[in-house]
């Protein structure tokens, strides 16, 4: 593959990684504050992570 394609794919992965990492981090903090809300926080985290991943995959396929 050409260099610009590879650089683009790398940037997409960086973006997705940072996004999901931040979501996971905030979820961990929230669980730490309120351990009994674990189920709801986990659900919300998975939904947000899937949305971010969806964009990431779409971009990867376009690239």
């Amino acid at each position: 593959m050409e260099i610009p394609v590879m650089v683009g794919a790398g940037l997409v992965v960086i973006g997705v990684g940072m996004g999901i990492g931040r979501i996971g981090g905030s979820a961990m903090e929230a669980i730490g504050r309120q351990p009994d809300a674990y189920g709801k926080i986990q659900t919300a985290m998975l939904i947000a992570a899937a949305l971010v991943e969806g964009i990431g995959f779409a971009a990867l396929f376009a690239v």
Partner: protein
Amino acid sequence: MPSALNKFTLFSVFLVVLFSAPNYLYAKDSETTKDLKTEIKEYISHHLEDAYDFSLFSYTNDQGKHVYVGIPLPVILWDEGLQIFSSTKLHHGEEVADIGSNYYKLEHGKIYKTDEAGTINYDEFHHVTNIAPLDLSITKGVVSMLLIALLMFWLFRSLAKTYAVNGGVPAGVGRFFEPIVLYIRDDIARPNIGEKKYMKYMNFLLTVFFFVWFLNLLGLTPLGVNVTGNIAVTFGLALLTFLVTNLTGTKDYWLHLFDPLGSSMKWYAKIPLYIILIPIEVLGIFIKPFSLLIRLYANMQAGHIVLMSLIGLMFIFKSWLGSPLSFGLAFAISLIELLVALLQAYIFTMLSALYFGFAAEEHEHH
């Protein structure tokens, strides 16, 4: 308890065998007529694409000919009249099919109409310029979807029947699915759609959840059927969500789309805002189901590509160190794929419920 331990060991052995079975099925003998990498690429694309026959595996026999073990499926074309023939006539793209006065050739997974010699014309971009007749065949994907539909129907029908027999308590295998159904009702449908209208949409949500989940799981088995990784399938599912959202949209739904500010501002003050806002909202009507489509397709397709590539990596390494490592990695990734199968089904259902909630909302303060 000894019996529980035996069941657990048996189940885990079964899991390991199930997920390593693709490796045995793709095993090749030591002399290959083609380069190993090309052959692996072909196996990967064969797994990812739809096929006109349900071939479980193939091998090259002593005469160097490819032998496919499987069931041929009917090919149904509409080309000035209905042409129905068995896919054995296509010979997996190696020969030209001779049906009456028409000749068809299978090229890169699509059927094109050619002449007797089987010429395929390419234009300057390497796209085929032959006519492709309208293809309504029963392909591998269609058969898998029908089988899953039958399985779901049988499963949930027998679950429903046990309620009557057993006095309100389910029995049998269906017991596993009752909490899932309740979860979809209480945590996906009710919060998003609201108490009044959620029952109308429950049929669709339940069907879509289990359909997508079972199809994703089916793609992980050694049968090599990749249904949800096929953009046409996910397009159909997303189209259904789109149609249900927009056809059951209440007046408030459309009002919110095209007039979100309502009576809080004068009409001439809203115009500059709406010039920007309304195109975005209109685009949003299409982009929301489109993202459902892309998300499911890309997740499944990427997962299968990674898994198949890792399995192929095992054969490229051919060493005592590289191959077991690749196998371990492939096994770990197939476990992640199990999670992704469930997660993607859940996300699809959740977002569909969210969109239905938008469509079904009744405005309180107008």
